[in-house]
């Protein structure tokens, strides 16, 4: 058998392209997911350029069907739905990024502490278990009831809901890594706890965490839309996909575009994140499949 003649499929590709990029773009579905996310990112960032004023009302032109002037039609007070959807993308991205950042900061600290200091494990993880005993959306609703409607509070509430899920994944990895011989060696050399955790343990438990990031992002976007749809998320004057849908629900017979366009935006975003997340998982964490991923996806 000649095995040396063939180049390894993972290393083919144009020379100079980073290996991770080759790997990530090898699967078409991952690429599609990445493209969808890139488009959404561009729309969100450029919202003020490609969209008009999302709050401008034109009562005379209310509930107008999609046309050249209003690509996605207008709502019940004559606001341009395209502009509102575009600004909604900005809000969703903001919430997604902020929730991922916040819940990963809290979740990773808790997970590292619980996994490394066995004496604290019980206390930290019982609190996390308690928070996870609530269904995500119900806990988020309850937190919003206490905090009151605002964008910051939505971010905080969703981050509280998802931090324990991150913490659990991190703790699981730490428990394995802390028993490895390189950690033992570092400890024998007298490395301090902070350096040990930061330099030796943390980098090695990042893969499953990165995979989870895309799912937490998707969950954050979904939860924000659901909360705002229910009227307990962002205040009604903020253009959010959930708010647009809630208003559109009342006019679904006369103006279906009020539901269809923001709905399509949510679907496309989540679809893109799921495709990308699946690809990322196969790349970084091929051992986790099936049930474990679905558990991550559902939150």
């Amino acid at each position, binding site marked *: 058998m000649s095995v040396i003649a063939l180049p390894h499929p993972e290393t083919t590709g144009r020379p100079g392209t980073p290996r991770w990029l080759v790997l990530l773009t090898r699967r078409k579905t991952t690429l599609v997911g990445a493209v969808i996310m890139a488009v959404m990112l561009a729309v969100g960032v450029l919202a003020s350029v490609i969209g008009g004023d999302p709050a401008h009302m034109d009562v005379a032109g209310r509930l107008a069907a999609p046309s050249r002037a209003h690509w996605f039609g207008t709502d019940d007070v004559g606001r341009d739905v395209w502009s509102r959807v575009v600004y909604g993308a900005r809000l969703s991205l903001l919430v997604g990024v902020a929730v991922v950042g916040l819940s990963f900061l809290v979740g990773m600290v808790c997970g590292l502490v619980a996994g490394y200091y066995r004496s604290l494990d019980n206390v930290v993880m019982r609190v996390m278990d308690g928070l996870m005993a609530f269904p995500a959306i119900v806990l988020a609703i309850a937190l919003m009831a*206490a905090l009151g409607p605002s964008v910051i509070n939505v971010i905080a509430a969703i981050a509280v809901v998802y931090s324990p899920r991150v913490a659990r994944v991190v703790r699981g990895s730490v428990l394995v890594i802390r028993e490895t011989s390189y950690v033992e060696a570092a400890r024998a050399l007298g490395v301090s706890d902070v350096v040990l955790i930061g330099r030796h343990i943390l980098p090695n438990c990042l893969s499953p965490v990165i995979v989870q990031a895309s799912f937490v992002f998707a969950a954050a976007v979904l939860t924000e839309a659901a909360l705002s749809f229910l009227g307990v998320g962002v205040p009604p004057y903020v253009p959010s996909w959930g708010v647009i849908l809630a208003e559109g629900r009342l006019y679904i017979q006369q103006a279906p575009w009020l539901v269809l366009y923001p709905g399509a935006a949510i679907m496309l975003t989540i679809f893109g994140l799921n495709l990308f997340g699946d690809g990322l998982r196969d790349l970084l964490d091929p051992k986790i499949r099936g049930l474990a991923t679905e558990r991550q996806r559902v939150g």
Partner: protein
Amino acid sequence: MKTYIARRLLALIPVALVVATVSFVLIHLAPGDPASVIAGPDASADDVQRIQRQLGLDAPMPVQLVRWYGRLVQGDLGQSIFLRKPVTEAIHDRVEPTLLLTLFAIVIAIVIGVPAGVLSARYHNTATDQALMVVALLGVSIPNFLLGLLFILFFSVWLGWFPVAGYSPLEYGWAKTLRSLVLPAFALGLVQSALIARIARSSMLDVLREQFITAGRAKGLGERAVVYKHALKNAMIPTVTIIGISFAILISGAVVVETVFNIPGLGRLIISAVLRRDYPVIQGVVLCIAFLYMLINLAVDLSYVLFDPRVRYQ
């Protein structure tokens, strides 16, 4: 087995304590004094004090917490501020639609999800498989409330097949109830069926790679017998888990979908309580759903024993 169940039940106690504590803390998270928030901006100092006494907020925190545990043990969730009746009664009045909706949805999810996953695995890497999995991924990408709105648009507004919204209680006949729940149950169940299909497929694929499947084929069993008799049974273990998880998710999903279809269940109850700042009701419903959720998760864990005799619990 018995000791395992007992141990699992005992393990629920600390979680239940944390759950009770979290729902207690929630009411105190509100910026400022919850009593004045409840009373509203125009309330007089007397009103605020009356509400404080009514809710027992005038006692020190640890005392309040102990009282809260004590009342919970007796099954007392307090009085609704707005509805002027016990919270347990309010929950009791609203639980029927939510439970029926959840049950209906889980049936739909299983009936569609399991066969789709099995088919997809049997015709692995064919057009059937790929088409089913793209649909399933689309399915997990649609939020249930959005699917509900789309259903209203297509089946109620455009086709006129179902009522746009509303719920017909069981006392007016189960046929009417069922009809009023068709769209919301599909909106909830289809999304979960996508999840179940994905799991059923991947666990079928894992099982089909096992040696006893090769052995079955080698001894001349038909493909049908191999897939549906030998593989399916073994692939059901992870699938049952995800069905249990789905069931738990559906309860909270129902909370959202009820708003879309104006169904007077627990979801509507908690949302209207949030809008009216009726904190005892919020606490009560949250606690009630969390306990249901815990019990379902326990049932799922216990069901392993039934489905997989290899699983031994020490």
